[in-house]
């Protein structure tokens, strides 16, 4: 199915584009621990790319490399055909890369609305004087961005908790708000670190639907880490498999499922 550069068509008929993000020979060490060992893979425009692997395989570390939180000792990150220089995370965010976290990282003291509004930080332009006087761009922006945020709130079906401080929300809803905050940035690439962890079946179904809808409606490219193999097989176009910091498989869900190395290292063994 894979081609040289122009993309491919998924079994369900979606056109996947060229390479958006390419990781080339990434090695990341923490002192003596090698979290990522010489890994290369790419993420294509419009695709849902899964990263799977047992606990401690280095999946979250890989997302942290992508959004500039960790700086690999070796290797290169290419984004949209250009080699990316070492960047601070907020600069990466400005490129249009947003994410959610494995352990929810919401702003606990703020309401759902404010959390999601904060997600639009990179799109705000009013200067401090305009903001202090609530004048010109400041007022206009606040209203415009609020409209966009309300759309996200409707999309995620969280209207009823708009003004609730997020610290008071149950876990499943917090995960949803965090997705909203990432979506608010209108990202080109959305990184999701175990968006369905700890959810019941119904909540997982909702979350799957949101992920697919985001990809479908906004054309957002998605890279997600997920432990639930059923979910991965269902929604991912291509899967990278990691184990002990190494890449042991890369391909469509079917290819990965039938890869003996993957079966040995991951699917065959229970990791819970």
């Amino acid at each position: 199915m894979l081609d040289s550069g122009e993309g491919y068509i998924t079994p369900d008929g979606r056109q996947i584009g060229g390479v958006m993000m390419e990781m080339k020979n990434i090695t990341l060490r923490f002192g003596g621990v090698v979290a990522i060992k010489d890994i290369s893979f790419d993420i294509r425009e419009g695709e849902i790319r899964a990263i799977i692997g047992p606990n401690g395989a280095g999946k979250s570390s890989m997302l942290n490399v992508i959004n500039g939180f960790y700086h690999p000792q070796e290797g290169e990150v290419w984004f949209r055909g250009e080699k990316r220089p070492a960047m601070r995370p907020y600069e990466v965010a400005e490129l249009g890369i947003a994410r959610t976290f494995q352990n929810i990282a919401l702003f606990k003291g703020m309401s759902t609305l404010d959390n999601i509004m904060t997600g639009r930080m990179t799109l705000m332009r009013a200067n401090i004087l305009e903001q202090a006087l609530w004048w010109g761009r400041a007022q206009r922006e606040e209203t415009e961005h609020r409209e966009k945020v309300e759309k996200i709130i409707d999309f995620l079906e969280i209207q009823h908790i708009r003004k609730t401080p997020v610290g008071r929300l149950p876990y499943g809803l917090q995960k949803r708000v965090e997705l909203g905050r990432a979506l608010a940035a209108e990202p080109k690439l959305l990184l999701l670190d175990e968006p369905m962890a700890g959810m019941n079946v119904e909540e997982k179904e909702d979350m799957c639907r949101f992920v697919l809808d985001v990809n479908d409606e906004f054309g957002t490219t998605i890279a997600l880490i997920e432990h639930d193999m059923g979910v991965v097989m269902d929604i991912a176009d291509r899967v990278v498999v990691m184990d002990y910091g190494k890449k042991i498989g890369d391909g469509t869900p079917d290819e990965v499922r039938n890869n003996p190395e993957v079966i040995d290292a991951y699917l065959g063994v229970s990791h819970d």
Partner: protein
Amino acid sequence: MFYREAGDFKTSYQDDAQTFPIKFDRYRYYAVIAVGLLVIPFAINDYWANAVLVPFLIWAIAAIGLNILTGYCGQVSLGTGGFMAVGAYACYKLMTAFPELNIVFVVILAGFVTAGVGVLFGLPSLRIKGFYLAVATLAAQFFLVWLFNRVPWFYNYSASGQISAPERTVFGVPVTGPETSAWAQYMICLLFVVVLAWAARNLTRGTIGRSWMAIRDMDIAAEIIGVNPLRAKLSAFAVSSFFVGIAGALFFAVYLGAVEVGEAFGIQKSFLALFMIIIGGLGSIFGSFAGAAFMVLLPVLLKNVLVGGLGWPTDLAAHLELLIVGGLIVFFLIAEPHGLAALWRTVKEKLRLWPFPH
């Protein structure tokens, strides 16, 4: 008339983002401003101005400033007294260097000077947090007081080492110097309070305020979703110091008239401001007012009741004050980190449901 939102529907997001979404609150707020502007200036006397109103207004500005830094942005500061001193000395130097310049501009400029100094002392916050940052700001406090004591240029080489404010007028009415009347002192401070509180409210409900709170609540996630931590922290230091500097300038020029730096702006003042925002409520403009009012009124009240009314010795009353403040700080830190403002909010929640609580 009941206290609630019912029947008071918001038809635009702009309305929904208002400071006082409930009509009743809005009217009460206008009423407070009207009384402050139209009634008190005519009723005020020297005692009320000196003991209560003017210090309350000035401390409200300082508390808002500290609350922006500590309550909203999560950067603890023990340097409030030192930054007030910067505002005071900047004001003094500008007043004496440019006697023609209107005092209102001088005070605002003093705020800008303090903002600059605040940014400078805020630089360590890019590297250190919490306790270590508190110690760094404490160092700033002692350094600044030492500086204003030791470098005679700051006090224009006066023999006493003090600075004293010459007379300046606004629309022909003296607002600094010995001729100033109580109502003029009060009015100039009130005008600064109203404008600054409004600006603080605007900043904290908008983009920059959200960037401060994001840094406070989870700095790593904030940076990853696009908050520039350098800009967020330094802007918090700048805005906070601007407010604190203006408070210092007014404290010196309008309230005290003459100042010896260690006495007027020592470490106790840093703690006083911190107590105000802890008791009033971290991360709340209203809380800054409540805390300032409480800390200014408490000693006055205790003195009147215990010393004046019951004939206690003054030092006993002072000790009781320390006990009460200490107890309250512990209480609020443990039980209600959002201070009086949160208690007030709870009362309002109850009121909104009254008389049918279910």
